[in-house]
């Protein structure tokens, strides 16, 4: 039984949701990570940051409640800030980010390597969007979690060494893909959970990095 693209994203987001704890202050990157809140258990409430200026961002408002002139998220889309939240300046936002006040950030990646270095902001000559807040986030957040598809059109994204320009060096703590969960540890990149749909050999074949299989490898669910 193979998963389609949508199921893969949902599977990854569901697993990533388990990394967040009640009360965590979290910044979620664009794309797949924004799906994570819908998979949080009912007793887990996280405080979401939108780095353009919200602590405690709510769900995207419907057209009737949207105020796109004054309340947007970091992608410029209508956002909300329910009671209990706060609007902040960019100085305060990045003080929170760089100052170690964000418990976790979940981001996508173009490449990650076995030393935890990350590339996710530029493909020279092809895509030069800029790093936005990503470099500060991965340097400042207490935990950096990469949630992404394991390969890009079959090509490994988890490498011995990133070949694209880096976002930051040795910054990633955990990588979650549809194949498994990998932790960046002093001894190297350790496969701690395996999606039962795949074998360790499958994961190795889709990974360029040296992969250490944890002695207590458990099924990913």
């Amino acid at each position, binding site marked *: 039984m193979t998963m389609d693209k949508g199921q893969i994203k949902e599977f990854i987001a569901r697993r990533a949701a388990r990394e967040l704890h009640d009360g965590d202050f979290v910044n979620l990157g664009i794309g797949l990570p924004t799906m994570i809140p819908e998979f949080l258990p009912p007793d887990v409430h996280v405080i979401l940051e*939108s*780095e*353009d*200026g*919200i602590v405690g961002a709510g769900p995207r408002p419907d057209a009737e409640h949207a*105020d*796109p*002139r*004054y*309340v*947007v*998220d*970091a*992608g*410029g889309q209508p*956002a909300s*800030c329910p009671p209990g939240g706060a*609007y*902040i*300046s*960019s*100085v305060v*936002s*990045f003080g929170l*980010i*760089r100052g170690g006040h964000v418990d976790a950030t979940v981001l996508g990646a173009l490449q990650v390597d076995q030393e935890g*270095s990350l590339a996710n902001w*530029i493909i020279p000559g092809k*895509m*030069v*969007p*800029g*790093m*936005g*807040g*990503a*470099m*500060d986030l991965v*340097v*400042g957040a207490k935990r950096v979690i990469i949630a992404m598809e394991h390969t890009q059109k079959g090509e490994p994204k988890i490498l011995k060494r990133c070949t694209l*320009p*880096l*976002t*930051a*060096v040795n910054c990633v703590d955990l990588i979650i893909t549809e194949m498994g969960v990998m932790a960046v540890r002093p001894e190297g990149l350790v496969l701690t959970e395996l999606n039962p749909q795949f074998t360790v050999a499958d994961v190795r074949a889709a990974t360029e990095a040296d992969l250490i299989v944890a002695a207590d490898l458990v099924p990913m669910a």
Partner: protein
Amino acid sequence: MAKIIGLDEAVEIVQEGMTIMVGGFMACGGANTIVEAIAARGTKNLTLIANDAAKPGMGIARLVENHLLRRLVASHVGLNPEVGRQMATGELGVELVPQGTLVERIRAGGYGLGGVLTPTGIGTLVAEGKEIITVDGKDFLLEKPLRADVALICGHTVDRSGNVWYKGTSRNFNQVMAFAADTVIAEADHLVDVGGIAPENVVTPNVLVDYIVEGRP
């Protein structure tokens, strides 16, 4: 204390070749009335310091579309394809700066600091050509201050003396840019009498604002 001026007068303050800062985040909280008037007048060879280049047709994107920028210092330009096109042809020089570094460089420029030390960018392209300073065993990049000739900020409510209150997420870069330019022009979505903003709700105090222009409510 700020002086209330007309849009035409504000546009004349921004001269060819100047460096301008424009607040806002994807045009939310941007001084879009003034910026669009500058774009229409066609003031050339500007250096723009802003978080992003907005989206096509919005706010500062008009400056790009009208080929008025020589240089852009920003953290993200990915939602404005025209920037990519002008970068590729060499018409527009773009310096990409991490968002947290951009805001701190502006803060340094406005707060009288000689720069900031940040761990952001160490080991990346951002560090190229920059000094690394080790403090208590930890490496930091020395990032230098940014200042502008003119800062264009925008407030939801501005009183006639120049005090500013920002609504929602529109505070963003406006608050810090008001410190970092020789001349600060505030666009007022709503211009009110002094007292219309309670003192404890003033975010940008009037001593930072030179001119006020009425924008669109």
